[in-house]
């Protein structure tokens, strides 16, 4: 079967898998970004939250496939079992960048904010997070690129994504399925990267960093 015939016959299914892949990606990324920023702020502000860093480091060192497998006994196979381990993997880059972004905000800005009578919360939201935003978004970009390709692995536990095509391709020695599955995954990664770079630049401009 030529690639053209393959696309003709399976076009609908491919599109369906692509949409599912993107949805999975968006949910995992949104969760990871939110949790990562919260964890970063918590570690930055609260001494008691420092334990999060070593825990996240261990989780980060665990291969995705192991994490997926470890989650099966607790979460079963299916969407929850697929999204949770991915989301966990996505947190660390965001958390690390949130933390280093907040720590690298110019001390003069923090002192001016405090000295003028901003509360801790006002300082965080009006000064620190905004000025750390470009670094935080860079962390989200790292997460996004990783997640968009790692999501193919969820096919192993029966959750449909572009990974399904790749698995089919391997099982049936089908070059077309392999080509389409991996090609689309790679294309998505490139697009996501470009979008995030654009966001980063916007944030830089809003933070008054570019001229």
């Amino acid at each position, binding site marked *: 079967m030529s690639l053209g015939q393959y696309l003709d016959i399976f076009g609908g299914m491919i599109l369906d898998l692509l949409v599912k892949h993107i949805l999975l990606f968006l949910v995992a990324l949104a969760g990871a970004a939110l949790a990562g920023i919260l964890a970063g702020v918590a570690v930055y502000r609260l001494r008691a939250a420092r334990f999060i860093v070593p825990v996240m480091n261990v989780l980060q060192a665990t291969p995705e496939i192991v994490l997926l497998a470890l989650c099966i006994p607790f979460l079963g196979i299916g969407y929850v079992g697929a999204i949770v381990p991915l989301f966990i993997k996505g947190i660390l880059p965001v958390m690390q960048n949130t933390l280093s972004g907040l720590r690298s905000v110019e*001390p003069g800005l923090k002192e001016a*904010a405090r*000295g*003028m009578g*901003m509360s801790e919360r*006002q300082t965080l939201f009006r000064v620190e997070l905004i*000025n750390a935003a470009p670094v935080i978004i860079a962390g989200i970009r790292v997460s996004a690129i990783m997640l968009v390709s790692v999501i193919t692995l969820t096919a192993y536990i029966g959750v449909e994504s572009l990974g399904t095509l790749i698995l089919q391709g391997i099982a049936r020695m089908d070059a077309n399925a392999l080509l389409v599955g991996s090609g689309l995954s790679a294309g998505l990664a490139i697009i996501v990267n470009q979008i995030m770079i654009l966001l980063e630049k916007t944030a830089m401009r*809003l*933070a*008054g960093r570019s001229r």
Partner: protein
Amino acid sequence: MSETAIKFRSVTKRFDGTELPAVDRLDLDVHQGETVALIGASGCGKTTTLKMINRLIDPTDGAIMVAGRDVRSVPILELRRSLGYVIQQVGLFPHMTVAANIAVVPQLLGWDRKRIAARVDELLALVHLPPEQYRGRRPAELSGGQQQRVGVARALAADPPILLMDEPFGALDPITRASLQNEVLDIQRKLRKAIVIVTHDMEEAIRLGDRIVVMEQGRIAQAGTPADLLLKPATPFIASLLGEDRAIKLLQTMKVASLMQAGGEMTDGAPGIGRDATLHEALGVFLSSGAPGLTVTDEDGKAVAMLARDGLFRLQSAHR
């Protein structure tokens, strides 16, 4: 003396893990309308002293009163919003426009939009930045000197009676620094704040300070008017801070009017000098003309008195 704006009563600050206190039983009064310059080597406690006023640092012992109230009895955010604060790094928020930066404290205080906008324009005009040209700019689009002008405007935004300045012009080139110092003198003449300025630059302390407080190891080594210090430095260290040319600096702090003799012998053809000129400028005229006396003129250029060269040389011994 006018009312006391800031009072230090036996204030001590000890930082954890250090043996000697950073500030040691400090007593100091700052009056309304007065500029006090805190000066000393780094680590002498001058910045710690300043930051205890707006409670960026809390004292270990003793009490600080602002406008008659113990700073610990005022809610901390309210205290800070009521004190103008200018820092060396300027600390303008890069994501906000010049106008938004100046508006920070009024906004925290809940002023309405119209009042804030009017105040921002008024302050920009005060620091000589035309509002229509500057209010919409970002800090990155301003020079260092312009940024600190905005920094000063921001500190004055809610019209605080007290202005705290932490080495405000230390990062600026000498020409820009001098023009900002003049601006502060101007503003102070108009607004009569109580200003506490921390500096390591004796020239700055002499120019801006009504009183200079020299600190050494957390204590006051000497406090007095610039003329007091220049005439009688209490220790060799203070003398070295003031410099070998302190006699000349003294002349900079004094006006011709303070030494002229009304109705003294007027010599025809003697060079003239305005009575508001400094004695330092008069010395320059003596040096370049070689004349033994100068004709002192008033604002309209009318001769009103004379200034004898010998008077300059008697100045030092007269005060001893």
